[in-house]
């Protein structure tokens, strides 16, 4: 029983750590900010489906300019 609990606890910690690391390295630093003529701004978070479409083009631009 004790061993099972420890295993479940370890798995839960590992999952949380994995989510945190994934967010840190793959999502948090990514963002698209769009500015419009009327002065409004829309920020699209890195993990969103819209950003998933646009970010590869940004990466390509960064690669091309390197």
């Amino acid at each position, binding site marked *: 029983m004790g061993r099972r609990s420890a295993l479940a606890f370890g798995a839960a910690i590992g999952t949380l750590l994995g989510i945190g690391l994934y967010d840190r*390295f793959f999502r948090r*630093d*990514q*963002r*698209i*900010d*769009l*500015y*419009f*003529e*009327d002065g*409004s701004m*829309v920020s*699209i978070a890195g993990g969103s489906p*819209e950003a998933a*479409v*646009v*970010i590869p*083009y*940004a*990466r*390509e*631009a*960064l*690669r*091309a*300019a390197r």
Partner: protein
Amino acid sequence: MAIAEKALSELTDISSQVRAAVLFDGGGKVLASTLPAERAEGFAVAAKLLWEQAEVVRTDENAKLTQLEAATADGSVFIVREAEQTLAAVTSPEPTAGLVFYDLRSALRSAGEKPKKRKAPAKKLTPKAKPSGSS
């Protein structure tokens, strides 16, 4: 040096965050760049595609997109557009967006300026000689 090239050169001098910049027209033709020609073309094409994709995903259909920042862990891509000219730049990660946009706008306006005509040197005004015989 052409005015546009000079504007981009000044941009990279002024802004320590801007690594490279390219100015291109509506058709994607490179007008000026801080990069060698081949890389400049590749960057302009990628920036144009990025802008087009951003226009597709925008949430407000009525408002016109004027500038964008695409931030990644490797750096950011900034694009500003005025009339038919677009200026794209890449920066180091986590730049000061407001400053970069300000510098890009200034550079874009400088690049669009027409060369000023040289003024003819001002003529020296010589005092009129007093008519002789007057009292």
